[in-house]
């Protein structure tokens, strides 16, 4: 009996190609839309994560003051000293690397080219903290750091604008009026969430302190957390240590702040996840609309086909057999539509992902859910109108015009 109904269902689909196509179209569009949107959304999330990890994940940034909204007009909280750096290195557990930073902005000059950029004074540990490799040349030598020699490592943007194709390593350029030798070039990091990360000149901190800032203060300490440790715990110990060192009484406000880059990463990831969910919800609605389209066509088709149902019943078909035929038809059309939809989504995602500069990530779960959902819609909406028709008295069905 199943064999018979399958034959009948395929014959009916084959004989009514336009009707079958329209029925399938709703599913195709619904599935293609939902899968494409979710796939691209996932790609976007992954791209954001990638950019965040390029910031150097799990880095605690220790700064004086009370965070970004430094309120009140009191005295400026003191910067950090080298003693603080040593204390962090020696007394804090869960720390992978610690780097001091002083910052200064100025113009770099090489053979008549000018480029305005930011100078970071730090140590070789900076590269380790930021997980930032030197592609050409080398890091600072320990004796260069100890002596505060006039050497620098430049970012790729500086290289492009200042050297314009010439090999920079070994050349001497001027920065803020001081001559310095380029010893290395940093790997490209691209546009992070915070502007061009490649627009930097990195120099030994001692040199920057001596020639540019004029004191031995450290304006920022970057602490890279060991992956095996929880960054929140390390942050707490860091805060405790600093309160102790800066003699802040219990109950008083901190005059420093620790900013966890993981927080930004979590926030941004959360935002894109929400975006993906919203996009997914919109797509799910389109899938539902597609389903209603199918229901509509199935309903119209059953009305149109009532006379056919009457003929089948009159020549001896049992209602169950007629119903089975419609059910098989609905299943075949929905599954076919689902598969075509998945295929189109694949093509669309692969084509659009590069345009949006996000990676293409195939998510089997999304594909499966969309497919099952579409099939279920087709079956449910194909089944119920057919059941109504099959319940008709054959004579009434035959008279139906």
């Amino acid at each position, binding site marked *: 009996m199943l064999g018979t109904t399958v034959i009948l269902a395929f014959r009916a689909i084959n004989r009514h190609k336009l009707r079958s196509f329209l029925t399938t179209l709703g599913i195709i569009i619904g599935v293609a839309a939902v899968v494409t949107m979710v796939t691209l959304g996932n790609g976007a999330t992954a791209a954001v994560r990638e950019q965040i990890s390029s910031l150097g994940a799990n880095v605690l940034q220790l700064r004086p003051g009370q965070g970004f909204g430094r309120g009140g007009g009191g005295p400026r909280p003191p910067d950090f000293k080298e003693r603080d750096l040593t204390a962090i290195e020696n007394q804090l557990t869960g720390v992978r690397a610690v780097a001091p930073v002083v910052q200064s902005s100025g113009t770099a000059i090489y053979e008549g080219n000018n480029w305005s950029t930011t100078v970071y004074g730090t140590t070789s540990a900076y590269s380790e903290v930021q997980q930032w490799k030197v592609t050409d040349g080398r890091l600072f030598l320990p004796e260069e750091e100890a002596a505060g020699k006039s050497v620098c490592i430049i970012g790729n943007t500086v290289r492009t604008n200042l050297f314009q194709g010439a090999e920079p390593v070994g050349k001497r350029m001027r920065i803020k009026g001081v001559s310095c030798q380029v010893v290395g070039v940093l790997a490209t990091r691209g546009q992070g969430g915070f502007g061009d990360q490649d627009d930097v000149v990195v120099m030994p901190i001692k040199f920057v302190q001596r020639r540019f800032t004029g004191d031995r203060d450290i304006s920022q300490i970057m602490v890279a957390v060991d992956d095996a440790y929880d960054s929140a715990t390390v942050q707490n110990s860091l805060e405790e240590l600093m309160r102790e060192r800066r003699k802040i009484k219990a109950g008083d406000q901190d005059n420093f702040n620790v900013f966890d880059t993981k927080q930004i990463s979590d926030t941004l990831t959360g935002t894109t996840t929400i975006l993906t969910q919203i996009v997914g919800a919109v797509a799910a609605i389109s899938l539902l609309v597609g389903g209603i389209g199918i229901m509509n066509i199935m309903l119209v088709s059953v009305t149109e086909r009532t006379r056919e149902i009457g003929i089948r019943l*009159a020549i001896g078909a049992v209602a169950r057999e007629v119903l089975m035929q419609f059910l098989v038809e609905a299943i075949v059309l929905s599954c076919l539509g689902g598969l075509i939809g998945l295929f189109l989504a694949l093509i669309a995602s692969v084509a659009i992902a590069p345009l949006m500069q996000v990676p293409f990530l195939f998510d089997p779960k999304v594909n499966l859910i969309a497919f099952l959902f579409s099939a279920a819609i087709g079956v449910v909406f194909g089944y119920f109108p057919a059941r109504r028709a099959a319940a008709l008295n054959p004579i009434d069905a035959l008279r139906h015009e």
Partner: protein
Amino acid sequence: MAPNTANSPIISLRRVTKVYGEGPTAFQALKGIDLDIKQGDFVAVMGPSGSGKSTTMNILGCLDVPSGGEFLFKGRHVETLDRDQRALLRRRYLGFVFQGFNLLSRTTALENVELPLLYRGEDKKQRYEMGMAALDKVGLKDWWDHTPAELSGGQQQRVAIARAIVTQPDVLLADEPTGNLDSERSVEIMELLTDLNRNSGITVLMVTHEPDMAAFARTIVHFKDGLVERIEQGLAA
């Protein structure tokens, strides 16, 4: 239960009534039909419009159920059967021909004829052979791959007859089979029905308004106001 011998009727109606609708709008279409149909008979049913001919045919064809009375088919009570049992009875013993042909559109003559065999579960080869044999009987063997749209009215009705007889039914029910045809085509259909009745032993029941067509029958039943008015011998008897 009566034994199924050649002498006992294949169909018996006893005080059969049919009421359409309910309450004040209810309409009694049949007011107590008593009718026996002998095996192998060719019966023409005549009567004015609205006298209950189609209603009776639908009950006889197990397409509809009587509101009251008894209906025996081959000695078995049919009025107590459920939907599916009646469908199986139609599948096994009955063939239908309608005034409006009622063929499936976009479907070839052969596939239309094969349809009842599909529901019977015959295999492909058997379906083809029986289907072609039935088309041959109605003289349309060469038209097997034509769809209804490509056939004339008379040809369509002959395909419908082929579909009705392909299962070798005991009874062929035809409600105004020539109602949509001109007189020449009508005579061809009547000759076909006569042939099936004489040579294949099929009991034929046919509704008609035309005395010319009723002349092909052995028995003529006259209906009036939901009752059998009289039964007479036909010219073919």
